[in-house]
């Protein structure tokens, strides 16, 4: 018992230390923004590598997320005897508010967050980051700023695609598998669609993107001990990003969707 408590305390201290480190890196990132134009080539490179190259993954995930949402919703509707004309309403809300931003962000954390940590972690253990510093190049401006900015802007961009593709997936399964006509599904979707939901989803996605970028860079910067250390940093990066995405998603729900 005492050992478990000690271990829990140890993890608690480590977690608080990491949050402090991530906050410090965030401050350095903000300060580096004054040299944003100097890094424009690096930023565009990352926008492509991080964002555009994630598009196929997001499209595949979204089409199945939309399809399974429609299928499960129809199954529950039939179970409680609710009319299927509300299928478009229910799926549309779920996709735009929660499923597209959260699942896209988690998939992005797996692909991009892990990739950024592995890349920067390898640079750290092979002394490439030290080499940058030795040449008088600020590694936060050169490495962190382009990756965090690309992540911050590309997650909302990908969520727009995810929203669209998931709705198409839901529509297809509704027509083929649930026997709901396209006009009935789309009428329901149109009736429930609110621009504010869509925008809130994109704001959330931006915050998630920032979390993935900054956590990925922080873990990469602090990797040590060779291949094993880089592997551990990569795992930690995905775990911390995913946990923070879910915590912040809950905070957004409390702020944006008040019950009274």
């Amino acid at each position, binding site marked *: 018992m005492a050992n478990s408590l000690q271990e829990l305390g140890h993890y608690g201290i480590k977690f608080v230390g990491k949050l402090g480190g991530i906050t410090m890196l965030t401050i350095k990132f903000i300060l580096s923004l004054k040299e944003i134009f100097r890094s424009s080539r690096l930023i565009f490179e990352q926008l492509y590598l991080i964002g555009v190259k994630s598009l196929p993954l997001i499209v595949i995930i979204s089409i199945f997320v939309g399809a399974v949402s429609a299928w499960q919703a129809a199954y529950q509707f039939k179970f409680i005897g609710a009319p299927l004309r509300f299928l478009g309403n229910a799926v549309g809300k779920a996709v735009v508010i929660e499923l597209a931003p959260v699942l896209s962000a988690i998939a992005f954390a797996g692909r991009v967050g892990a990739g950024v940590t592995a890349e920067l972690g390898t640079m750290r253990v*092979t002394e*490439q980051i*030290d080499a940058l510093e*030795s040449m*008088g*190049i600020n590694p936060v401006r050169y490495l962190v700023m382009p990756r965090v900015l690309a992540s911050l802007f590309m997650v909302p961009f990908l969520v727009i695609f995810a929203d669209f593709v998931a709705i198409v997936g839901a529509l297809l399964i509704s027509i083929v598998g649930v026997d709901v006509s396209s006009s009935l599904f789309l009428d329901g979707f149109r009736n429930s669609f609110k621009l504010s939901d869509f925008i809130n989803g994109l704001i959330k996605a931006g915050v998630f993107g920032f979390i993935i970028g900054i956590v990925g860079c922080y873990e990469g910067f602090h990797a040590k001990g060779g291949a094993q250390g880089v592997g551990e940093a990569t795992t930690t990066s995905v775990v911390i990003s995913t946990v923070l995405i879910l915590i912040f998603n809950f905070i957004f729900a409390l702020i944006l969707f008040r019950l009274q």
Partner: protein
Amino acid sequence: MDLSFIEIENLHKSFDSQQVLKGVNLGIDKGESIVIIGQSGCGKSVLLKHLIRLLEPDEGRIVVDRNDLSQLKDKELIHLRQRFGMLFQSAALFDSLTVEENVGLGLRESRLFTDKEIKKIVNEKLEMVGLTDANQKKPAQLSGGMRKRVGLARAIANNPEVLLYDEPTTGLDPIIADIIDELILNLHQKLKVTSIVVTHDMKSAFKVAQRIVMLYDGKVEINGTPEEIKTTDNQIVRQFIEGRAKGPIKV
């Protein structure tokens, strides 16, 4: 009191519970070629990294050209680092960049040169290290010796006043190692730089050093000319330079 160009005063550094440097004191004059020797893990590279504040001391201070490194603001530190060039143990080339881009990166980022000037300087430096046909290759396509030479070309790209070498011959065959030693000597003579070499390769140390310093147990064990090192009675130094398993050095 006259200060050396680089003054290391009572330097202490620990990593977790392991105390690596326990009060190193050393002065290095301008234009010197000094070699720091010692066992693997004795803190030679740690000491080298302190000279450009890649690591911060736990205690003590480093003064370079009358600037206390701990007091420098970010911009001042960048300017000071630009007066140094460093060859890393594994060369630390950027995987995603070509040889030419690696060598020219510091120049490009300094924004003081046009593309044409950078290309000219890069070719000049690659020629100095004897690499004239690898400009467009990526680091993964180079041998260990070629990587070190590219690292060296990158280190001298902005005409530094001080060159730091971290284990320049480690992992190289004896012939390539000797070529690197010749390069270190040539660059020292041609560029009139201060050379600080960290190594445990004694052949290399005796070849390039004007002065040899040995680190042992976190402190300077001996500081003298190569001749003084060769003839010393200090049993710790003797065991190390003769490469004997038995002796006072605890492994």
